[in-house]
């Protein structure tokens, strides 16, 4: 996989962001690559880093006693991975493992947090942008909770 890093504005999550903010965030960005089946982070570890997936697939997982490593969700091109860095206790709530060889834009979240503290207006914009992505993720998760494909017997 070669080629220039995908510009930030190309990611749906940042599509509406003004130029100035995009510049600031780009300053913290670098391209990273993961082989298949590579663990990106584990539950409980200090939360550092935010990844915008360019291609490949990453699974969010958790160890459940008796069930092993359970996959909760997979993320793909355009998705944001990781936001526990934004709020205390700044630790990962889940683990993440690449399923396929994956390329992503990694943001330096320590820098992002510092920038946000210096410039609250930027911070507000950054948080709202990420909030929208979280909201969509939450809605999709709730849709799964509805168990819409279940049969009437399952609903009783």
């Amino acid at each position: 996989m070669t080629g220039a890093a995908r510009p930030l504005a190309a990611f749906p999550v940042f599509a509406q962001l003004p130029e100035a903010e995009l510049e600031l965030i780009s300053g913290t960005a670098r391209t990273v690559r993961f082989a298949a089946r590579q663990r990106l982070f584990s539950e409980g570890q200090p939360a550092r880093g935010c990844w915008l997936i360019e291609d490949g697939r990453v699974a969010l997982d958790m160890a459940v006693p008796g069930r092993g490593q359970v996959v909760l969700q997979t993320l793909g091109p355009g998705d944001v991975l990781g936001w526990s860095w934004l709020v205390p206790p700044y630790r990962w709530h889940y683990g993440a493992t690449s399923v396929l060889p994956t390329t992503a834009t990694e943001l330096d979240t320590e820098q992002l947090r510092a920038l946000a503290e210096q410039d609250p207006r930027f911070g507000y914009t950054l948080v709202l942008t990420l909030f929208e992505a979280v909201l969509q993720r939450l809605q999709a998760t709730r849709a799964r909770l509805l168990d819409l494909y279940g049969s009437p017997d399952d609903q009783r």
Partner: protein
Amino acid sequence: MTSADTVTVAAEPMLPVPYRVTSRTAETRDSVTLHLEPAGQPLPPFQPGQFAMLAVPAIGEVAISVSGGPEYQDGALVHTIRAVGKVSRALCDAPVGTVLGARGPFGTTWDLPSAAGRDVVVVAGGVGLAPLRPVMLGVLAGRGGYRRVLLVAGARTPAEFLFHRELDAWSARADTEVELTVDRPAAGWDGPVGFVTEPLARLPLDPERTTAFVCGPEPMMRFSAQVLLRKGIPAEDIRLSLERNMQCGIGLCGHCQLGPILVCRDGPVVGYTLAEPLLTIREL
């Protein structure tokens, strides 16, 4: 008393014609695909999106969309049924050789020809893949007539996908983009895990030349349509297949009303422009 009775009443539309089960394939733990052939007079050809009223004598009758492709135009019927009630259970249990009653074709079609030359996006949730199978088969039978062909199908678990073998075959095609996703993974599943709207949201689509065909539980269709609208696809290019209680299938019993429309007559396939305001009214 006038003698010239010019009102010719067509053959009683509530009378089924006998159809025999010629093959039976279990798709999942609660879904079966039946191939039916006329035991007498064949019914007229069914278009993708249309449905038949299938009767199990002494038990009842239900509306089931056709799930077969263009090759079944000689009077034969293909239906994929999920056992959710006493009639559908009886249909799923019907052994080869059983004589059922069939009426149809009823309802509006997916109108595949109107998508000629455009990108075709098929979004299926659960057993919603069954009424969409004729769209896939129709498009692939005339593949050159369409631009991109994309299928996004969601199921509860990997074991609950309908048409496993066909999904594998379509996934293997170079000229078709297939994304299968599950709500809950199982051991050995390496594919996407997430609601069907998630891979759908990731697809780069051209709003100027995309026609979307969506089928599944109503909330899933609404969520999927919202994702498509966010991507700029106009509402009139998004088609859903609706479902309501049907007793007659021919606009006479009143059960399938959804506000101003009768789903059996003005649907089941409707454009999202018409459907959107209706689906947001609670208990309509």
